[in-house]
């Protein structure tokens, strides 16, 4: 700092510590609840210090919610979404930046507009599409008379169906379209000097070789930044998996499992609410993305700021 300000420094520390306490308190209370027995959690004077029941509670919550396969599922879906988003963002932005063709800006805007309407807003019709991902084409063919034509010519009734409910594809596919990622990649590709492209062409590299051998190695920081934010985004998906997956035993994801843990009349049947297990499960579910954000902090912050601005 420029000048010595001992009093202000103390005030600064006090304010920041107060902020940290406010942020930590709810999770601390949840953590404490997860370390006590059922009786201790539900008795009147609240515990503020952890007890010794953390491990047994975690184990019981793990078994009760059948977290093993659900963690595997969540990991599969998150990886799928991350890989899918980065691949799509990269190749789309590449085609938009390094090729000349008419309608380039139109396509860019068509992708960019999708930012405006997040999944939550158009949830009902998107769900209907997931029940049959080919229904748009079916409707178009019916409306234009193509299916009638095919039916009269070949006698085959056109009935396209591709049900995405209760499948990894259904969980991943609607989430991989990415306006922010495409935008980030486009910004990066625009900074690539023309000389580099010319040099690559002089050496006889086609577009795909240029993409693979020059651009992708250059965009490693981009990939790290995008991967971090997209992983957190995918892991924390709630509404979409809640709807698409009815077969929770096979395809359930951990975050959705939380909706079953709310200790109300439904789950406890009027008994004592099992807060200690609910909180233990909450901790288990929230931990992986937190770890990622803390350890990948640099990339995470960069990704967040570059995609939204």
């Amino acid at each position: 700092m420029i000048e010595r300000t001992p009093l202000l420094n103390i005030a600064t520390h006090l304010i920041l510590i107060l902020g940290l306490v406010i942020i930590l308190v709810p999770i601390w209370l949840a953590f404490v609840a997860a370390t006590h027995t059922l009786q201790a959690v539900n008795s009147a004077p609240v515990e503020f210090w952890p007890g010794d029941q953390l491990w047994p509670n975690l184990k019981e919550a793990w078994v009760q919610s059948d977290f093993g396969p659900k963690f595997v599922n969540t990991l599969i879906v998150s990886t799928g979404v991350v890989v899918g988003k980065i691949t799509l963002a990269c190749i789309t932005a590449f085609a938009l930046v390094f090729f000349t063709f008419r309608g380039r800006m139109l396509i860019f805007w068509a992708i960019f507009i999708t930012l405006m309407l997040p999944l939550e807003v158009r949830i009902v019709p998107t769900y209907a599409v997931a029940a049959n991902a080919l229904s748009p084409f079916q409707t178009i063919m019916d409306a234009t008379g193509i299916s009638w034509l095919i039916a009269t010519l070949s006698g085959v009734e056109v009935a396209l169906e591709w049900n995405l409910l209760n499948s990894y594809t259904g969980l991943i596919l609607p989430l991989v379209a990415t306006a922010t990622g495409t935008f980030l990649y486009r910004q990066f590709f625009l900074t690539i000097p023309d000389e580099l492209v010319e040099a690559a062409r002089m050496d006889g590299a086609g577009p795909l070789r240029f993409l693979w051998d020059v651009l992708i190695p250059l965009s490693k920081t981009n990939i790290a930044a995008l991967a971090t934010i997209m992983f957190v985004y995918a892991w924390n998906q709630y509404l979409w998996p809640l709807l698409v997956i009815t077969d929770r035993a096979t395809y359930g994801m951990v975050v959705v499992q939380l909706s079953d843990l709310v200790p109300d009349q439904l789950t406890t049947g009027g008994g004592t609410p099992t807060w200690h297990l609910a909180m233990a499960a909450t901790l288990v579910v929230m931990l992986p993305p937190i770890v990622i954000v803390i350890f990948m902090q640099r990339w995470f912050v960069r990704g967040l700021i570059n995609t939204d601005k």
Partner: protein
Amino acid sequence: MRRACFKFSWIAAALLAPQLLIIFIFFYWPSAQALYWAFTLEQPWGGGNTWVGFDNFTKVLSDPYYWGSVRVSVIYALATTVIAMGMALTLAIFVDRQLAGYRAYRVGIIWPYAVAAPAVGLAFQFVFNPGAGIFSYINTIAPGWWDLSKYPWQAVTAIVIAGAWKQVAYSFIFFLAALQSIPRSLTEAAAMDGARPLRRMVDMQLPLLTPTFFFLLVINITDSFTDSFGIVDTLTGGGPFRATDLMVYKIYADGFRGFDYSGAAAQSIILMLLVMALTFVQFRYVERRVHYT
């Protein structure tokens, strides 16, 4: 804009196709579908749609429950935005002084961003629980005074606090990045002119943050409309007496529990227009008017 390019070929088309196909199937088609449903009446058990014009909209707009939902959504949006941004701005300005422990403070404020909304809802349900959380203290002093499942204002307060808690990290990251991009020479010049740290905060840093401030304002309001589902679903379930029935939650409840696709579609269209209007304001006015650098 770029001189050296490849000629358009099947390669470019093949690279563009996957993303365009996905946004067509999962974005443009459903949006069009919502528009179609909003103007027709769909029989949930099949049997086709009949054109009803603006009937669905008039039905939605004359429904007192819908206006209740709009009211609480606006309250939630404004309250979470004000609390989260206020707290984020304060913390960012003081973290930016870069005293000892600056990195630890930064991590300590950023990590809540990674917590899933339903996990936040569930943790806060425990915190606010009248029987087991810290609020059981209040109930030992004044029995029955605090109960989320009985008193609407308490339920609204709970979701606002949970929502604000989740939003702080996001705004903090942006405020801090903006503060750190203020050139050091500017700070030093101000110090030479005799401006003490507090004076610099008020007269130099805050004005320079205006673009970030407006950007975050719009983003936070938009997010509170769309991201609130997880918190409401695990914290209050829309109750008591529909007091926390936020717009997204109502669309979900009407569409998937009430099977009223047309009503839900009409509500979706209204929400879409609202989000689009906010984004438009963001691009058209905020980005242009407020510009210092």
